[in-house]
């Protein structure tokens, strides 16, 4: 048993840290430090820089442009991204649709989509949830009717982050209305410029406009845009959800939040032992979770697939993120209405997205405890 990172891993961390320090544009770093919203160009510029360094496609096979990192290196990279105040890489292309295309797509699809996902030339968004299908995703009602070599798609997708910037959307749609719930669904790629696709922003309680509703009205899509087999899209959907859950703990981000909180307390000369104690409690839980993540990573490095244990990281990670945004609000007391309240409001989303925390508890109960 050995907890230390290997010398190679440490050297890799230094390399990433130095690269971020020297290559991250200063205006982007300032925005992140200030907690400002980023625009598309910020994400695109940063992705381009990392792309040129060969550092975007973690988790992809090396021959398709992947970084060739193991789980530990991937972990180190994302930690340093957070510690260095760099933007996260938007996951919808790189870490959601790309793994599905790699796993279930054909060669033509891999050649068409992957290079532009890696370079950031094309942005993606996720067409999963619907007004009537949230946690019960398989009850989705968007239809894709086969008409010769095309699908005719009708339906509404919602809660879509970054749809306003996206060039493509991957959509779960029902291709066999008579099949059982999970069985008649297909995974289809839709060009956002196709006639009949409209994006409507949804303003969130924090004033943000990063999520959207996407209407698909008589949208005609070539059958070549189907990934995997028709009516077997649920397999892709589940595969993607498991990918999505890993890394949702956001531990490095929480450490940044903590540091900001300590700075705030020092700056405002807040002297409140009760607050100190509440912060310490969250900090300790964060350490416990960070160690839990390392245990998961070590298991993954030893060849174990990420399993339902990742639900722990999702639940506790988001609870801690929320607790920290709450503590920042409480720390500032009467001045908290400033920029901290929107963050607190915004962070309520974390326990809802990527499979609500209640759904995660169902997963633990069923798949781990076998209840």
């Amino acid at each position: 048993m050995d907890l230390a990172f290997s010398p190679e891993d440490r050297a890799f961390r230094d390399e990433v840290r130095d690269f971020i320090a020297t290559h991250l544009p200063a205006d982007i770093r300032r925005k992140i430090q200030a907690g400002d919203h980023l625009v598309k160009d910020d994400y695109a510029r940063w992705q381009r820089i990392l792309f040129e360094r060969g550092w975007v496609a973690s988790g992809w096979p090396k021959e398709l442009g992947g970084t060739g990192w193991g789980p530990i290196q991937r972990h180190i990279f994302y930690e340093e991204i957070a510690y260095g105040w760099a933007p996260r890489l938007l996951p919808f292309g790189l870490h959601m649709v790309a793994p599905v295309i790699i796993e279930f797509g054909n060669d033509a699809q891999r050649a068409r989509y992957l290079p532009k996902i890696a370079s950031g030339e094309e942005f993606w968004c996720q067409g999963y949830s619907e007004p009537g299908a949230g946690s019960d995703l398989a009850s989705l009602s968007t239809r894709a009717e086969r008409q010769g070599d095309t699908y005719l798609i009708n339906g509404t997708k919602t809660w879509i982050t970054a749809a306003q910037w996206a060039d493509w959307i991957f959509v779960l749609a029902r291709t066999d209305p008579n099949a059982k719930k999970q069985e008649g669904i297909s995974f289809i790629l839709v060009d956002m410029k196709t006639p009949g696709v409209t994006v409507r922003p949804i303003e969130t309680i924090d004033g943000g406009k990063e999520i959207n509703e996407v209407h698909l009205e008589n949208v005609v899509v070539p059958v070549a845009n189907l990934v995997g087999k028709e009516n077997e899209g649920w397999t892709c959907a589940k595969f993607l959800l498991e990918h999505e859950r890993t890394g949702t703990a956001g531990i490095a981000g929480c450490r940044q939040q903590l540091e900001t909180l300590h700075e705030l307390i020092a700056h405002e000369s807040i002297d409140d032992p009760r607050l100190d104690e509440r912060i310490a409690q969250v900090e300790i839980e964060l350490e416990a979770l960070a160690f839990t993540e390392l245990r998961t990573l070590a298991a993954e490095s030893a060849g174990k697939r990420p399993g339902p244990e990742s639900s722990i990281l999702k639940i506790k990670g988001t609870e801690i993120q929320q607790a920290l945004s709450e503590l920042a609000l409480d720390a500032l007391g009467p001045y908290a209405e400033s920029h901290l309240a929107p963050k607190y409001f915004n962070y309520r989303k974390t326990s809802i997205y990527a499979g609500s925390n209640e759904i995660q508890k169902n997963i633990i109960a069923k798949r781990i405890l076998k209840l």
Partner: protein
Amino acid sequence: MDFTLSPEQLLIKDSVARFAAGDHAGTEKWPQFAELGWLAIGAPDELGGFGGPIETLLLMEQFGRGLVRSPYVAQVVLAGQILRAAERTELLERLVEGTERFAVAYEEPQARYDPAAVKTTAVREGEAFVLTGTKVRVLDASTANTLIVSARTGDEISLFAIPANAPNITREPYASEDGYDVANLRLDGVRVDAAQLIGPLGDGLALLDRALDHATAALCAEGLGLMSLMLEATVEYTKQRQQFGVPIGSFQALQHRMAEMFIEVELARSVAYMAAMTLDEKADDPVARRRGVSAAKVQMAKSGRFVGQNAIQLHGGIGMSEEYKVGHYFKRMTMVERLLGDGQYHVARYIASRGAAVTAAPDRDPVGASGSRAS
């Protein structure tokens, strides 16, 4: 980074698990422990010692799972680590052989867990010291031949090894709620000579502080064992118990509670390992050691309380019954939560040691990383 156990570690785990699963109630198992080598964990090589905090964790986790009532933490980990750091090899050898047994008397009525809050005095009279004062909650004192007592020598604190039957010592033994052997101790002018000093004069607090961290980590491992068994028993029970014509484990309210218990057990597992590894890898850094171990105890206390209370709740009436095992695990967990400092005490200790670490370079080391980054 590697969390797999070595073949030797697996062997310890399995042999302790076999013992813990068997009939270990009532009778004194010390000679057996000595024979199995368990008293030598953490001792130096020349005494036949082996392993360290990880091996202690493996043993204590299984003791927890089997609800083994044993003076191991107090007499082997706490006393042993004091003797080891003080380089009292001749005493440690007898401890490892099982021929002499040590209890550590450090806590006082006003101390609330703090080993620095010492009023007991050791006044020098020529070559000797005379000790006067009161010690409380001395763990496993009845079976000890020798008491290691902390006392004030001027501004500082020193440790003394005193035969348990020395004149002017009164032991008042009692059983704690979980049936453990505890005693209060009165020292009315107990005379010791300078050779009975453990470690250099005035080094008592540092010795105690370090050894208490080792013992606290061991308790965290026991807590992990207790909690994991309570969770398993609860899941099993809710699959069997039928109400409204179905197993109660099919109800979502109960499933979510058990999922939460599962998460707490996993966090507890993480901090138990974190504490052991901190002792292993940060042996020369008392600030990191205190921070890591106190963090572990805070989490353990919180998780243990949640798992214990809900294990009783989900069992319903049977959980309240003295005949059923879960209540006994809960009682032991409640004691473990408090022994050597409760959550309140350790959160304060964590905060204090965090402040001291601000100047430490942020190495982003897995152990205690967020603490060292805090400002």
